[in-house]
């Protein structure tokens, strides 16, 4: 039971990060119908930016996160600007284009930070809380808290602001949105920017939990994508539920299958998607037929 609860907490912590990554995928997908395969690499850049700044300049962790957000936000805008000529034309090409950007970012990370990577000290040094024999690391609470805050802010933006409403409109029908005077390109750029900012938050948070290295983007990206898909691609609540579900799946697979956990995770994921491709909440997508 204790082991179970311990695994549960670990799973939820990682799940919160996967949910952030998944939301980044989803916001781009629902706005422009594109899956950004470079998203994992943007998370990795975010992790590097935050951890480097945090360790080098001894500023508070929150400031380091903000710096990472600015860096990745810019990267997101650059990617969108490059691929804009392909928007609403050829999705396979755009998809391959984002894979290309992923490779570029990974190469840049190797050139800037080296191929080996570094460990990041935890920003909260307090003892883990002890709840009936289950040890809850304070950092886990921080991760869950920050993820919840980012989610709330995103929901507020999408629901309550004019810009958010414009983005929702583009997601539903980009032609009708254009007719209403919404600049679709700008809205897409914003989706990419926000997606990249979420990636930075996810990367900053996961830094102290994992070893930060240039290839972490691939695995994180796929896990985040899988989470988004489990929840139902493009759906925001789906991304959260899918993220946590995938975090738990991951944690329990690691507990029971040790080294083969990745294999088990991906096979279970492939099966789940085959049985229900639209995920738990159904795909909230732009109908492009």
């Amino acid at each position, binding site marked *: 039971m204790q082991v179970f609860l311990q695994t549960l907490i670990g799973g939820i912590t990682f799940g919160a990060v996967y949910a952030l990554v998944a939301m980044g995928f989803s916001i781009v997908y629902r706005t422009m119908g594109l899956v950004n*395969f470079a998203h994992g690499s943007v998370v990795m850049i975010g992790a590097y930016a935050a951890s480097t700044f945090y360790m080098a300049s001894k500023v508070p962790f929150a400031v380091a996160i903000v710096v990472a957000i600015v860096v990745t936000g810019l990267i997101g805008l650059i990617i969108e600007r490059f691929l804009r000529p*392909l928007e609403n034309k050829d999705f396979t090409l755009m998809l391959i284009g984002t*894979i*290309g950007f992923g490779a*570029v970012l990974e190469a840049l990370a190797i050139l800037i930070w080296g191929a080996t990577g570094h460990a990041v000290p935890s920003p909260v040094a307090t003892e883990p809380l002890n709840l009936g024999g289950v040890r809850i690391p304070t950092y886990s609470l921080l991760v869950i808290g920050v993820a919840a805050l980012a989610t709330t802010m995103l929901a507020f933006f999408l629901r309550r602001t004019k810009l958010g409403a414009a983005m929702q409109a583009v997601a539903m029908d980009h032609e009708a949105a254009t007719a209403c005077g919404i600049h679709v390109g700008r809205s897409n750029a914003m989706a990419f920017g926000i997606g990249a900012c979420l990636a930075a938050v996810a990367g900053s948070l996961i830094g102290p939990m994992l070893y930060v290295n240039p290839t972490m983007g691939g695995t994180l990206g796929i896990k985040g994508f899988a989470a988004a898909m489990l929840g139902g691609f493009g759906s925001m609540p789906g991304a959260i539920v899918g993220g946590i579900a995938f975090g738990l799946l991951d944690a329990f697979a690691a507990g029971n299958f040790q080294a083969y956990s*990745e*294999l088990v995770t*991906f096979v279970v*994921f492939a099966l789940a*998607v085959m049985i229900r491709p639209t995920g738990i909440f159904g795909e909230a997508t732009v109908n492009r037929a």
Partner: protein
Amino acid sequence: MRRRLLLLAPIAVAAWLLPYGLGGYTMHVVDVAVIFAVLAIGLGLTMGVAGQINLAQVAFFGIGAYTVAILTSRTGLGFWPAAVLAILASIAAGLLVGIPALRMQSHYLGIVTLGLALGFINWVTNAGIAGRAEGISDIPVPPLFGIDLSSGYLYYYLELAVFALVLVFALFVTRSPLGRRLRAMRDDDLAAGALGAEIPLLRMTAFVLSGLYGGVAGVLYAGLIRFVAPETFNIGNMFLLLAMVIIGGRASIVGCVIGALGLAFVREALLDVSAFAQLGYGIVVVLVVVFFPKGLAGLPAQVFRRKTGERPRLSPFVPYDEVPPADARSVLEIDQVTKRFKGLVALQDVSLSVPARQIRGIVGPNGSGKTTLFNVISGFYTATAGRVRLDGASVGGLAPYRLSLKGVARTFQNLRLFEDLTVRDNILVALDRTRTSWIWRYLALPWAVSRYERSLRGRADEVLHRFGLTEFADAIPRSLPYGIQRRVEIARAMASLPSLLLLDEPAAGLNGDEVGRLAEIVRSIRDSGVTVVVIEHNMGLVMSLCDHVTVLSGGRVIADGPPDEVAVDPRVVEAYLGDSMAAPTEREAEHEHADR
């Protein structure tokens, strides 16, 4: 063709003489490059030709290599028996990875295949039988009639022979009816299905080909390096492979080969600065995707725009031979069909019966369920209730390709021509009436396939001539005027020799002359013994063309009879001119609300 062979001869001679001018290490680099070329052909077939995103190609490669390694080193099996089993294992993996493709496409497929590839790497790095991270290093030298294949020079000739074989097979497949169907599926899987292509089987075929090429490459790799380790099959190399195919031109097999050979040498040259190399590939891939979507293979066409000499012209339609009427049985019978989409009722108890050799008009306001009815008849939708009978046999719930083989052909409201296929190829897709199970012939009886292809081409010329499209045969549909595209779509539907032809708004976007010619074509089609059902908004055309008209409104049949009777039916007038005086529709109510 002969000129191509002449062009090929110097390349073959150069490839044959190549080892004489190379040092030992360069020879090794060439050997590796050829293996990448085999892999790239496989990826080009699945991604470029069949349009299936496959990021597991490197795993098929790995399965081939690892199977050879495990079987030879652990069980002492000979190299060649192990090689055969390895290729079979890769094909089996292809089938397994292809299963998700039946349920999902594009990015979903991309991530699932990528996930399975990562799963494979995870397995080989941890499984004791696969040698964990250290890999397996005691693979024997493949024996071949006393030829010492541990020499990179002699191994090159083995590779060359295999490479030539797989290249010719890939070219053969892409230029045959199967390849055309794969390309049609890539461009528009719905239209391909409606023309008789078995989409699920074709998708599996694409992944089987992918597995086959991955397996062959894996066997060659195991024989050449005689050592396998997980890092050869990592995602970085998958990306390199993808870059090769994209830069070379994914839809062109030759382009894939050029891309693979080129990048393999670049990779070798930049081995010491691999991070810069990856940066370079990434940037080049992004640039190619944005500026040269067809890659190197598409470059000549993009640079040297072919000068158009004479503008091609549409020739007159050559009427079909009239067939004397037989008994007036009913070809299509729709009995109490209802179609619901969750809460929305699109069709409610629709019944109609179309006798042979009739032109039946289906009219009704927008949103009255006309196209839904077509989608039910042609198998895109399954009716919620009711029956559809074709020549007396119930066909409810059959897949579109089965209905196509049973003689149903259709056109689409928004035109669904295969965009990257020429007009002739569009027609050829419809002419090919074989089932996909026919594909064993591609391996066993390639000459039979060639003969069949020649007969198809002859018939395609007949169809093109009949519809006056001969001068447009090699044009890409996108480049043609709208009216001609509409005619191509009708020609394509008729090429499948249907007994029932469904035309969805064939006159939309046509000018007066074109509408007149359309009526002439449709009458001739009817006189040749084909039953025609046509959805149309152009009432002048409906009145003059149709023998009988059915009016739909709100998913129900509200009138059915000869055109002149139907036109004066008060319910029809009401449906068309609006009943807003009596009760505003939902949309109108909304508008009023907004106005206030």
